[in-house]
């Protein structure tokens, strides 16, 4: 049980990251610390240019991908570019390869492609710990399709400014992924950047550049990357075939009463999500939830009503931790209700109306 004063770090402001960024910039200039040229030269070989459907205004027909195995596995962003039977990947050496779609993780919006080649310069995809805020990073991508053929993808330098849950939308639709992302201080939400590699100053893969999204709260375009750990989970979900069960379309409101958290009766249009009672011996009780707690967020996404709380829980895939933020006696308390139970049959269909 962790007590915070603030829910989450605000995105895109505060002098804190400016100071951190400066400190990191200076450190990298010292003798003996690797300069970015070598890391770029090495890592960029594993970033591929992906061409598919698109080409109409606002919907480009190209993006980026990351070679994650020497045998031609390419991890990229799930997007309309891949809505084509004829997806082509151009490697750093200029060779062109027809790609087949092995599978997709709709929640993280990842897709795994395969090309018929071996001995390729891949980036290791490891469930590394998250890099801390202030880490100097390099974004490698096929932005604006500036590089063609054997021309090297573009490199931008930046700093991980914050690690926060993604609250973003594309048009009117909310992004399905709501977990943590690295917020970057360089502009990476350009056409073609999605699917590019975020590497550290030694060229190690730390994330994948996200799709072009706007913040749901401020409307600004976000520059962010999906952390490597999420990429590992996404690939595992795709390879095990479990990702299909996590689609947003299947998500239904989830009643926390199933794990012992009884909410106040839904009597008003906007009933606040107060906890009415906690079932003795339930996982809610073990997690430390108490009656009269007011739930204000699920996995970092704010919820203002009982309905919103149930919808946010419903969006979480099975087995993901159900992290609640509650207000108790004026302080914010973090509660982990444990892994979300699998959705069984649909026994209460009428309840969803």
């Amino acid at each position: 049980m962790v007590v915070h004063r603030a829910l989450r770090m605000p995105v895109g402001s505060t002098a804190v990251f400016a100071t951190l960024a400066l400190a990191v910039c200076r450190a990298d200039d010292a003798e003996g610390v690797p300069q970015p040229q070598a890391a770029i030269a090495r890592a960029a070989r594993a970033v591929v240019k992906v061409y598919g459907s698109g080409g109409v205004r606002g919907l480009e027909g190209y993006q980026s991908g990351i070679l994650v195995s020497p045998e031609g596995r390419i991890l990229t962003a799930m997007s309309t570019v891949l809505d084509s039977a004829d997806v082509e990947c151009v490697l750093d050496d200029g060779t062109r390869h027809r790609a087949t779609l092995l599978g997709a993780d709709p929640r993280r919006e990842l897709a795994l492609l395969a090309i018929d080649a071996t001995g390729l310069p891949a980036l290791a995809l490891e469930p590394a710990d998250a890099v801390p805020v202030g880490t100097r990073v390099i974004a490698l991508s096929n932005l604006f399709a500036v590089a063609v053929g054997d021309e090297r993808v573009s490199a931008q330098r930046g700093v991980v400014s914050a690690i926060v849950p993604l609250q973003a939308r594309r048009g009117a639709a909310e992004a399905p992924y709501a977990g943590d992302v690295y917020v970057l201080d360089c502009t990476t939400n350009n056409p073609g950047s999605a699917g590019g590699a975020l590497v550290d100053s030694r060229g190690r893969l730390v994330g994948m550049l996200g799709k072009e999204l706007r913040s749901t709260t401020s409307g600004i375009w976000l520059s962010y990357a999906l952390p490597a750990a999420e990429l590992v989970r996404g690939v595992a979900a795709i390879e095990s075939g479990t990702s299909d069960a996590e689609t947003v379309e299947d998500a239904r409101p989830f009643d926390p009463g199933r794990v012992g958290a009884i909410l106040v009766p839904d009597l008003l249009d906007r009933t606040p999500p107060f906890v009415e009672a906690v079932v003795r011996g339930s996982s809610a009780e073990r997690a430390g939830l108490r009656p009269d707690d007011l739930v204000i967020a699920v996995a970092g996404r704010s919820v203002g009503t009982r309905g919103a709380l149930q919808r946010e829980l419903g969006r979480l895939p099975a087995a993901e931790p159900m992290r609640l933020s509650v207000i108790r006696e004026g302080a914010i308390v973090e509660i982990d209700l444990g892994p979300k139970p699998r959705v069984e049959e649909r026994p209460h269909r009428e309840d969803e109306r």
Partner: protein
Amino acid sequence: MTNAWMLRAAVVLTSVCLLVTALDGGALYGVDAVDRDVLAAEARRVASIRRASATAVAIFAGEAGGGSGVLVRPDGYALTNFHVVQPAGPAMRCGLDDGRLYDAVLVGLDPTGDVALIKLLGRDDFPTAEFGDSDLVQPGDFCFAAGNPFLLATDLRPSISAGIVSGVHRYQFPAGTILEYTDCLQVDAAINPGNSGGGLFDADGRLIGVNGRASFEKRGRVNVGVGYAISARQLLQFFGSLRGGRLVDHATLGATVASSADGRVVVSDILESSDAWRRGLRYDDEVVSLAGRPVRTVNAFKNVLGTLPAGWQVPLVYRRGTERAEVLVRLAPLHAPAELAAIVAGDRRPDRGPGRPAPDDVPGRPETMRPPPEDMPAVVRAVHDPRPGFTNHHFNVVERDRVAAAIAAARRPPAGPWRFGGTLAESGDFRIEVDDTVVSIDLPTGRSTLDPRGELDAAADPPGSGGLLAALSLWRRLSTGGPADLGSTTYWGTAPLYGSPLARADETATASPPLLDVLESAVAGVVARFFVDDGGSVVGIDLWLDADADPCEVRLAPPADDGLPRAIVVRRGTTPFATFLVTPDGEGR
């Protein structure tokens, strides 16, 4: 009342205490916790930026906007973009980091490459940027831009934006037929409207490019981490022509290339009137290299070609089947002269070209050339002389006279008739006489003579040379009488002499020979170009009897004590005519 006052005082006092604590902590951290190497790196960066800032020019064009420039010569020559000076017009006011305003005049224009040369007036000790080698720049290198983004430099001091090089050898499509960015540097340092024309510098403060373009998209005309700079290499290759006040054109090979199915770059179309065709290039031939730079993709071909001025003669290596050929090709102009003038004047607006709308854009896209103001300052008026074919003819005269003075000061044969002889490398002896009224040559194949006082356009003797006697006559007239004796002579710019068998040993060792001053004379119905080395010696002559045919090419070794070269090579097209080994005076007669 008193309570409220005390409360306020307490708040102020507390704030001051907090502030002091914060400053204290920062200072302690700065001294104790930072590594010495880091401080040294920081000091180096501060010094680089200070040096570069002194060379940054803020260009103001009133309501038409403005931009940036960068000083490259102590007498005030500064590089900027065509699209910055076009709305500014031929006279402009420029601010420097010293807080002073200077009058400036437009000198030369390269509309295709989006480059302009201006000259700040009033000093001969301006701080200048030192050129770096843009070919050595690699992705990840630190870089910074110094300029006038959003015209913020109301105090005339440049804004600095730092970043890394994101990509090298980038190709950016032209807007219509101009503003093509070839072989450019891509940077994530913020390049915004107003940065155009300003310098891009490396970690040591050396000039590696001129910023001029950025990719914009959904957020409007603000930087999104993707800017482009014209490379220092390209700027240096065009600098001579620009300094000569010319309206400079880019080049075409007279052939287009495409990628073949197996990834080779092959000729997809070729004009039979082109020099490349005459040198043997044909459809489907594979282009291997151009101007000494490898061509592995269509973009690489466009990148090399786009950095070369029209009229240069450069090596081309091509392959047909298993046969490999290396020839020298002359590059033709990309535009007709009138076409280029119309683009500058704005009569012809550059269209974006079909199918290429956003995202690429040029900051401050120009429309028409602003006419000179009626109240042009006298100092500017004195150095402003627009003429057809030139941006500012005044500077052509300046450069022509500079080269003429160098020739007059150089070692050359004494006045009077030139008589010399020797042996041919092929076999046999020769004897040459050049005088005001007669030019003659004795060869094993016979004697040829020419009266140089009349028209020369039919003077093709000796047979097969393409006009060697005429070339010898003009060489003597330039050497003894200067340009005044040679009809209409202009400063053409600078060009390399590739493949000269007489280049100095240190020149042949490098892939790119040095750039030589070139004078062009239109006289007696012929056109001749003279290549003059940095010592004022004529080391090459190209003479055209007919603009559409191959010229007579004469390459001369640097002169010996008697003012004469010890070796002269003559060829026409790919065909050698003869190599003359000159015997010192008094021998070999």
